[in-house]
């Protein structure tokens, strides 16, 4: 059994967790090109080494960040996202294709 040290729930069986993908920065939907958007959605560094990823503890729906080595299968560090995200991120809601404009 592999143990994931959850910042909220302590050490738990890794089968209780869901992998949520690499931590990447989303491009601004208003200014990004299709190609950049495709790059963000589909492409991956797929690093053989240390990666920084989103994980979720399924039972408590708690999202956190894990640093992990993809060759040795070691979990190096896990922490609450507030360590990294100190400011609130607001998504602009003035797109013409938002729900309110659908007729």
């Amino acid at each position: 059994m592999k143990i994931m040290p959850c910042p909220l729930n302590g050490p738990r069986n890794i089968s209780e967790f869901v992998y949520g993908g690499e931590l990447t920065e989303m491009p601004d939907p208003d200014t990004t090109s299709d190609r950049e958007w495709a790059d963000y959605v589909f492409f991956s560094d797929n690093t053989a080494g240390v990666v920084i990823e989103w994980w979720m503890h399924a039972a408590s729906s708690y999202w956190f960040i894990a640093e992990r080595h993809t060759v040795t299968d070691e979990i190096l560090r896990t922490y609450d996202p507030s360590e990294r995200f100190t400011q609130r991120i607001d998504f602009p809601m003035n797109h013409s294709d938002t729900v309110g404009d659908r007729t």
Partner: protein
Amino acid sequence: MPFSLLKYGLSSDYPVDVDLPAPKELKSSYDVVIIGGGGHGLATAYYLAKYHNITNVAVLEKAYLGGGNTARNTAVIRSNYLTPEGVRFYSESVRMFQSLSNEFDYNIMYSERGQLTLAHTDATVRAFRQRAEVNTHFGGRTEMLDRQQIRELVPSLNMDPGHLPVMAGLWHKDGATARHDAVAWGYAKEAAKRGVEIHQLTEVQDLVIEGGKVRAVKTNRGTIQCGCVVQAVAGHSSILAKKAGFTMPIISYPLQAMVTQPFKPFLDPLVSSSALHCYVQQTSRGEVVFGGGSDPYPLYNTRSTLDLKESLIGAALEMFPFLSQARLMRQWAGTTDMTPDYSPIMGLSPVENYYLDAGWGTWGFKATPICGKTMAELVASGGKTPDLIAPFALERFARFRQVNEMGATAASH
């Protein structure tokens, strides 16, 4: 000891046949350098020599021939995919497999058994009907079976596993299996016979790219100039592409499989379950192979885990309860390069003269012959993509034109 055996043993005429010539020094330059000496790389080399008369070719393999995912798959050959593009491509591959033993004069132990995929929900039954129709239309032999027909086809199958009774089945008559190592060895033997150089223990460390074009390959045995490069390194596609200067829409997950002690023959078709995420087949040696889905998180590591053993064996025993007394003989894993749409990435890359054969996830072995043939065509034509693989271009992601084979791929090899 019989006198004739002694005489034969001492004769200089023995052994008469050498499949692979002894290793040579690397030349300073080749027309085509193929990175990866698995089934796909070797098949590409073979068809380049056979159909296009291109023999100044080096296949570079960092370890030994067919030791990567060629040796780690579960040797399933089938073409019952969902999209017209997929069915056309894999059907051609199945047809090519059928004549490989004769072509090589070497037994790849091709054995047409048929593949049965079980549906446990109404939704799956509907999806299977669609697959059967698409398949029939594009040249495969696939039909729906009801419970009674399944019972007759596989008497040892438990028709009511847990809360998932079998409702219907997708019966793919073209489903087959073959000795995977022999496929690689057969291609290697025939390619070498035509003048292709196969270099094992030769690892590519870097690529020399000038003016957006690949010029040379740096290996642990020195640098070689090249006209073009074919990358066929299942499981390491992203790492090599990074050396070429671009990223891939790939995430690498381990895929684990296992095999039991041998039994007398009891299971002719390959049987898989869409809901239990498990497939079971009996090899020609009598061993029972269990395979399932990839691991739940990405890794470049082929370790074995107890979690996977438990879940996979649990599912296998739901299907074939009498195997509960079976002893597990081996377990192994391979690294699968999963793409977002469960289709491969073949053809051109952002680097000129650098061709991709990647993103083979869990579906690479069955494509070996057609992959080699179409990649050879691509190389020989100087980069004109054959129609059959045009839908699988890397460029499809930037154009949002994916070829979705998830339903036909996940845990139903």
